[in-house]
C-alpha cells in the first residue's frame, strides 16, 4: 500500500517530463544507428562473433537506457530532498524500504518501456535472436534488473549529495564505465592491453555480454550466469548503499 502510492507518483512524475523520456528513449537508438553503421566493417575482423554489427551492438542500447535510469531516479529523488518532500515523508510511518521501492518504480516502468522499444526497433531493423522468443523474455528481465541496479545507484548518489546537479555531474563518470567495457568489440579482440584489462574487470562488460549472448550466441549459460549474477550483485549493493544513505539522511533531517 505504502509502496503503491509512491510508485504511482514516481511513474507519473517520470513520464510527465518529456525531455527525460524522449532523451532516454531515442538517444540510445541514435547511437545504435550511428555505431552499427559506422562500425559495420568491424564485423569482418577475423574472430568477430557475428556477421552483423547491429546484432552485436543492440545489447549496448539497453545498458545506455539503464544509465539514463540512474540519472532520472537520482535527479527525481534529489528534487524530493531539495524541496523538503523527503523530510515530510520522514514524519509519516513510511518505512525506508518502501520509500526506495516506490522511488524506483518509475525507473522500472521507464526501463521496461525503453527495453520494449529498443527490442522492437532492433527486430524491425533485422536483428535475429539466436535464443528465440524465450531469449527475448530473458533479455527483458535482465534489462529490468539492470535498470533497478542503476536506478538504485542514482538513488544512492542523490541521497548522499542531496543535489540534482551533483547527480547530473556524475553522469559522465558513469558513462565512462560503459565506454571502458566490451561494448564495441569482444574482449578477445581488444588489442590494447590496459583497455582489455579494464574491460575484463569492469562489471558492465559482463552485463552487456549476458544480454548480447541471447542475440548472437543463443543460450550461453556462463554469459547469462555472469550477467544475472552481477546484475543482482550490483542491484543488491546499490540498494544496500541507498538504504544506508537514506537512514543517514533521515537521521540528519
Amino acid at each position, binding site marked *: 500500500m505504502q509502496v503503491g502510492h509512491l510508485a504511482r507518483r514516481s511513474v507519473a512524475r517520470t513520464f510527465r517530463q518529456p525531455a527525460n523520456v524522449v532523451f532516454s528513449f531515442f538517444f540510445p537508438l541514435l547511437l545504435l544507428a550511428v555505431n552499427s553503421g559506422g562500425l*559495420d*566493417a*568491424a564485423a569482418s*575482423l577475423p574472430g568477430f562473433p557475428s556477421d552483423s554489427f547491429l546484432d552485436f551492438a543492440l545489447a549496448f542500447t539497453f545498458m545506455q537506457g539503464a544509465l539514463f535510469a540512474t540519472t532520472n531516479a537520482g535527479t527525481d529523488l534529489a528534487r524530493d530532498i531539495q524541496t523538503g518532500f523527503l523530510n515530510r515523508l520522514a514524519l509519516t510511518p513510511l518505512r525506508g524500504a518502501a520509500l526506495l521501492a516506490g522511488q524506483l518504480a518509475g525507473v522500472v516502468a521507464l526501463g521496461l518501456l525503453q527495453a520494449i522499444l529498443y527490442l522492437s526497433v532492433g527486430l524491425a531493423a533485422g536483428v535475429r535472436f539466436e535464443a528465440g522468443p524465450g531469449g527475448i523474455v530473458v533479455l527483458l528481465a535482465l534489462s529490468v534488473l539492470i535498470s533497478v541496479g542503476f536506478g538504485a545507484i542514482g538513488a544512492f548518489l542523490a541521497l548522499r549529495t542531496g543535489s540534482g546537479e551533483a547527480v547530473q*555531474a556524475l553522469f559522465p563518470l558513469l558513462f565512462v564505465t560503459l*565506454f*571502458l567495457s566490451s561494448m564495441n568489440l569482444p574482449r578477445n579482440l*581488444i588489442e590494447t592491453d590496459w*583497455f582489455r584489462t579494464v574491460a575484463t574487470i569492469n562489471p558492465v562488460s559482463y552485463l552487456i555480454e549476458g544480454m548480447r549472448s541471447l542475440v548472437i550466441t543463443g543460450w550461453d549459460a556462463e554469459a547469462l550466469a555472469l550477467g544475472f549474477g552481477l546484475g543482482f550483485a550490483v542491484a543488491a549493493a546499490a540498494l544496500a548503499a541507498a538504504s544506508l544513505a537514506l537512514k543517514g539522511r533521515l537521521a540528519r533531517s
Partner: protein
Amino acid sequence: MKAFRSVALAVAWRSLHNAFTNPSILLPSLLFPLFFFTAFAGGLSRVGDVPGFDFPDGYTAFQYVFVFLQSAAFGGVFTGFAIARDFESGFTRRLFLAATRRSGILAGYAISALVRWMFTAAVVTVVAVAAGMRVGGSRVDLFGLVLLGLLVNVVAVLWAAGVAARTRTMQAGPLMQVPIFLTLFLAPVYVPLELLQGWIHAVASVNPATFLLEAGRGLISGEPTELAAAFGVAAGGLLLFGLWAVRGLRRAEAAGA
C-alpha cells in the same frame, strides 16, 4: 575599434577566469575528448586491421583527428553554455548597458572559446603522442590542421551563441549540442568513408563534417586531401553562423535581455 577591442578582451578575460577557476566548468571540456580518445583509439584499435583500412599513420592518429576536431566543436558549445548562463543570470543585460560596442561581446566569447580549446587540444595532443601516435605530416601540414580546428571552434561558438541569444536559458544546452553531435557522428568516425556502407555512407558522403575529417586526416598523415572543400565548409560556416549569432544578439537586445 578600440572600444570593440576593450569590450572583447574584457568579456574574454571574464569568461576565461570563470572557466579556469571553476573545475566543474573546465573539467568536462577537458575530460570528454580524453575519454573519447581513450575509448576509440584504445578500445577500437583492432578496427585498423579491417580489410581495406589503409590510413598510413595507424588507428591512433586516425582517431586523434576526430577527437581533435570534436574537441574544437564542443569547446565552442561549452562556451555557448556560458553565454546562456550569462543571459539567464541577467549578466548579459548589464553587459549590454555597459558595452560601448556590443559586437565586441561576441568576439570576447569567441576569444574565450579559442583559448579554452587550445588548452584542451594541447592536453589531448600530449596524451596522443604519449600513447604512441605516429605523425607523417610536416609542420606546415600540422599548422593546417590546427587552423582547421580553430575555424571549427569559432563556427561552433557562433552557432551556440546564436542559440543562446535566442533562447536565453541553460535549458537550451541539448539544442546546442545535439546537432553538432549528430553532424560529427554521421561522418566517417571509425573507418574511412570508403568502408562505410548503406545509409551511413550516403549521409556521410554529403555531410560537411566528412570533408573536415578527411582533410584533417590527410594533413596529419602528410597526404593533404579535400583541403579546398574543408576550408570552404569552414568559411561557409563562419559566414552563416556569424550572421546567425549577430542576428541572435540583436534579437536579444531588442527583447531587452
